[in-house]
């Protein structure tokens, strides 16, 4: 099982996020990636935590930062990749995998298929920011700016086109060992395709390993504990 990290990129700088709402500045993306590479982090998911008010211009500004990156760590990138125009800006960047969220929820087959042709099916990830509300799993639909019930989502479409699916526990993001395992009970994807994030701790990592989950992405709080990535890997 891989042990990676989530890095949030907001207005060209990294931020820490707690509970999907509170953010604090963290520094430059290159600096954060250099640290994670030094700790031999298995992979990094760079996510723009955008909502419905995202614009192509904001996207282009963030892409400039990605383009300038020098890294030898596997990178996934997503957040606001909502059109072919966005996708074309990703060509040649130092990233291996693309993360889509709204595009999967809105079943944008043409966009995702084009991404598959450009980057390969192995490169396509789906991000589902999820939480438990009224005894049901809900998914945050970022281009709408609200939560929708998972039952309203075409999960077969996601399973067909996504190589891996990131389940991001929005309520426990930033917490330690608080990932809500109940979230997996209603998820119809094979566990070996699932990556979990949000509230990951060492106990969560061990449990994920036992369940044959593909990867855990530790929240950005790892950057306050220099050696924690190695601790997690050998937990």
């Amino acid at each position: 099982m891989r042990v990676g990290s989530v890095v949030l990129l907001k207005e060209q700088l990294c931020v820490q996020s707690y509970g999907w709402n509170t953010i604090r500045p963290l520094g430059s993306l290159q600096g954060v990636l250099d640290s994670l590479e030094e700790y031999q982090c298995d992979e990094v998911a760079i996510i723009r935590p955008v909502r419905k008010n995202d614009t192509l211009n904001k996207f282009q500004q963030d892409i400039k930062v990605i383009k300038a990156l020098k890294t030898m760590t596997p990178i996934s990138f997503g957040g606001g990749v909502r059109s072919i125009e966005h996708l074309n800006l990703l060509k040649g960047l130092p990233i291996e995998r693309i993360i889509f969220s709204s595009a999967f929820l809105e079943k944008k087959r043409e966009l995702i298929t084009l991404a598959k042709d450009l980057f390969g099916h192995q490169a396509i990830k789906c991000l589902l920011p999820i939480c438990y509300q009224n005894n049901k799993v809900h998914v945050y639909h970022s281009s709408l700016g609200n939560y929708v019930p998972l039952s309203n989502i075409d999960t077969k479409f996601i399973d067909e086109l996504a190589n891996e699916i990131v389940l991001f526990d929005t309520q426990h993001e930033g917490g330690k060992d608080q990932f809500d395992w109940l979230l997996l009970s209603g998820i119809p994807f094979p566990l070996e395709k699932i990556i979990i994030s949000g509230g990951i701790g060492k106990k969560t990592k061990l449990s994920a390993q036992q369940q044959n989950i593909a990867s855990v992405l530790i929240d950005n709080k790892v950057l306050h504990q220099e050696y924690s990535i190695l601790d997690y890997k050998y937990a």
Partner: protein
Amino acid sequence: MSVDILDVGSGNIWSIKNWIEKANVSARVVSDASDIKANLLILPGVGSAGSYMQRLKQGSYDQAILEHLDKGGRLLGICLGFQIMSAYSEEDGGIEGLNLIDGHVERLLGKVSHNSWEPISLRKNELDGQSFHRQMNLSKKQILNGRVFYNHEYGFVNNEKKSFSISVSNSLSKYSGLLVKDKIIGMQFHPEKSQITGLDLISMIL
């Protein structure tokens, strides 16, 4: 020693340039088939086999690669760039490859996909049977021991008897993770994203 990286319109070209330059060797990104001049040509590969081969043919890159080898140049293929060196890939309903290595590419058996780090161990003298000799003395290392990053759904089945091949892993032993045949070297993993091991490897082969 010079290195050209072939840009056919997809793939993480700049990661590969960064990888080569970390070894203090300059590399050019080449997007015109007639502009290939270096001793070592790198064929990066990201995407699906069908659209990738289509782009190779449209830009006459396929012919340029053959001419490069005819002139005695060395060739390094990475991931899909390695797979399309085979005779045939079953991706996208079946694609004819460059047929530089006797082998074929098939969907990984019993796997959703293989997205993982795997250990690799290689002695430099194991490559001596091939003509892919290093030309620079960048490292005195004789043994490479480390881990490399894989992200693929298809695997290369090698039929070349005189080649040097290391399998992907114990559970994917049918497929080549690294293959050297004459002046051609193929890597199913992503050396440019394999951190310290990737750097050690490029220092050993350049």
